[in-house]
């Protein structure tokens, strides 16, 4: 979904994702779609928006999520056991889009898209109103098979940059779309008490080559961490912290998610 930039007469377009991360600091919330049910996923997204989230990541559950820690692994299994499928998720997003215009991105493993068919998947995303894709097992070198298809359907493929990326940072950033997902730590997703990566210098290296917004994820679970990272980057992504609440409260997680996200949003840097 692309919107005209009013001040330049609509000649250059800014995606809904970039719009959400430009000129303000943004909280990005993640839930696994279908955990515990797709009806609840809809509710959780709306609660996060109400609490001040500016962008939502929806995880498409996968049998073998190799980039996830135990919290999100379990959520994937819960969603799959509850009968969640890619098609049912598309239907849910379609319903959700009648209630909100918040930017939505899918986090999916490449096999989900490959098996569905890249063209069919991306055209379905465009139809229901998905704005971007995060594919944790598709590095820069392998994006060629998906990126042109996604672009033809106005879908931003979000690039990931890790603490180990070093000389790859600028190569990746130069071709980035939507926003750049900075992975804060080595390893898999999950709450961490301490993050030692020098996010500041990663952002600096990115800024030398692109103005595409940045967001930091992996391990963030406190408003203080949100504050620390949104001083450096444009957004902070929280996944496991929210999914833990779903694991604990199940169907009744909505109000708890609202409370949690409200608290985290207060941490956003103000400058």
């Amino acid at each position, binding site marked *: 979904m692309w919107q005209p930039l009013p001040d330049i007469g609509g000649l250059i377009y800014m995606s809904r994702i970039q719009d959400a991360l430009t000129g303000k600091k943004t909280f990005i919330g993640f839930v696994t779609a279908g955990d515990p049910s797709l009806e609840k996923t809809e509710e959780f997204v709306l609660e996060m928006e109400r609490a001040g989230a500016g962008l939502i990541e929806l995880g498409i559950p*996968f*049998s*073998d999520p*190799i*980039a996830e*820690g*135990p919290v999100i*692994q379990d959520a994937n*299994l819960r969603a*799959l056991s509850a009968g969640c*499928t*890619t*098609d049912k998720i598309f239907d849910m997003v379609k319903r959700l889009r009648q209630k909100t215009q918040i930017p939505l991105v899918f986090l999916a*493993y*490449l*096999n*989900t898209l*490959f*098996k*569905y068919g890249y063209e069919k998947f991306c055209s379905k995303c465009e139809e229901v109103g998905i704005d971007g894709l995060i594919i*944790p*097992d*598709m*590095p*820069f*070198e*392998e994006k060629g098979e998906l990126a042109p298809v996604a672009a033809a359907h106005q879908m931003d493929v979000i690039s*990931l*940059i*890790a*603490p*180990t*990326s*070093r000389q*790859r940072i600028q190569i*990746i950033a130069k071709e980035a779309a939507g926003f750049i997902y900075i*992975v804060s730590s*080595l*390893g*898999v997703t999950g709450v961490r008490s301490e993050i030692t990566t020098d996010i500041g210098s990663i952002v600096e290296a990115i800024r030398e080559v692109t103005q595409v917004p940045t967001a930091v994820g992996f391990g963030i679970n406190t408003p203080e961490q949100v504050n620390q990272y949104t001083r450096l980057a444009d957004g902070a992504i929280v996944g496991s912290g929210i999914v833990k609440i779903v694991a604990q409260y199940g169907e009744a997680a909505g109000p708890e998610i609202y409370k949690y996200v409200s608290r985290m949003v207060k941490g956003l840097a103000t400058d």
Partner: protein
Amino acid sequence: MSNGRFGIHGGQYIPETLMNEIHKLEESYEYYKNNKEFQEELAELLRDYAGRPSLLYYAEKMTKDLGGAKIYFKREDLNHTGSHKINNVLGQALLAKKMGKTRIIAETGAGQHGVATATAAALLGLECEIFMGKEDTVRQALNVYRMELLGAKVHPVESGTMTLKDAVNECMREWTSRVDDTLYVLGSVMGPHPFPTIVRDFQSVISREARAQILEKEGKLPDVVMACVGGGSNSMGMFYEFIGDEQVQLIGCEAAGHGVDTDKTAATMAVGTEGVFHGMKSYFCQDEYGQIAPVYSISAGLDYPGVGPEHAYLKDIGRAEYVPVTDEEAVNAFEYIAREEGIIAAIESSHAVAHLMKLAPTMRKDQIIICCLSGRGDKDVAAIARYRGIDLHE
């Protein structure tokens, strides 16, 4: 970097966190594979420690009993640690050392690769951690203890189906959390490039020897070369030097479990479809949405929902043929080769023997089959007894 494609298969579908490390591995491997000193060191380990070359054994009794082609077995079961796994592990552990790594990690199903990795780590003075599905640690408790004896730490994996594919998942997760001092010693011709190539190269010693041995014994090439296929390392090793010999038929035998028409199967070539998983594009057992299927085989070593990308390519171009073999057929073959030749072969290798028993009688007496006995079957005795209704535990 080449991205390591075999036709459309292969590639490097892994998290960004691992990309620099995997490029480093590729560069190091490219360097050491042509390094004389490295190759001499490895050859010495293979000869003086692993016991290579392995024998090419003429199975005279089986040949007579089956009444067709002449049958030869490539005896990888006689290697140190009892399987072909040691060939690859010595190569990769030595590479790890050259790269300055102090720790190696590996997945294991039945425990063969885990035991081999723990062995190489002990020999070369590397720290070693093995990831093994919790189900498999129960089924193969003896191998867990064996790895611990060798100084390795064994992590039972409790995620997913708690079997081999989950052990691979956990190894990848572990590697992303600790890349600097650690090399993931992958056990088969699978995973992201350069692993399928590295493992194939280290295993190709099987066919390099076998080709020279058969030429010496028979003065001609074999008509058929066959091996069992899970991920596909012993078969790729057994096939590799014969790929250019177009008259040699290559046959891979995969685990059909209860049968390819049931959901209790691991026959990826028969029932799998193209997908992207564990870092590679290849064939996988999966559902219509790309969820990886739980697979089943009596053999924990073949109980894997995918197959190496080079095998997928050999199938696509018609250079190799892949046939499914059921549990029942494999157990019959396990018992047959024990009785007939006095060899207790691994249940994995027995899948190849089962197909050999069907194929040999259809061939002429002047034709030759070489079948890879990838491992010894001591580890399987209790399970086979239970399969036959005898209450035997290790």
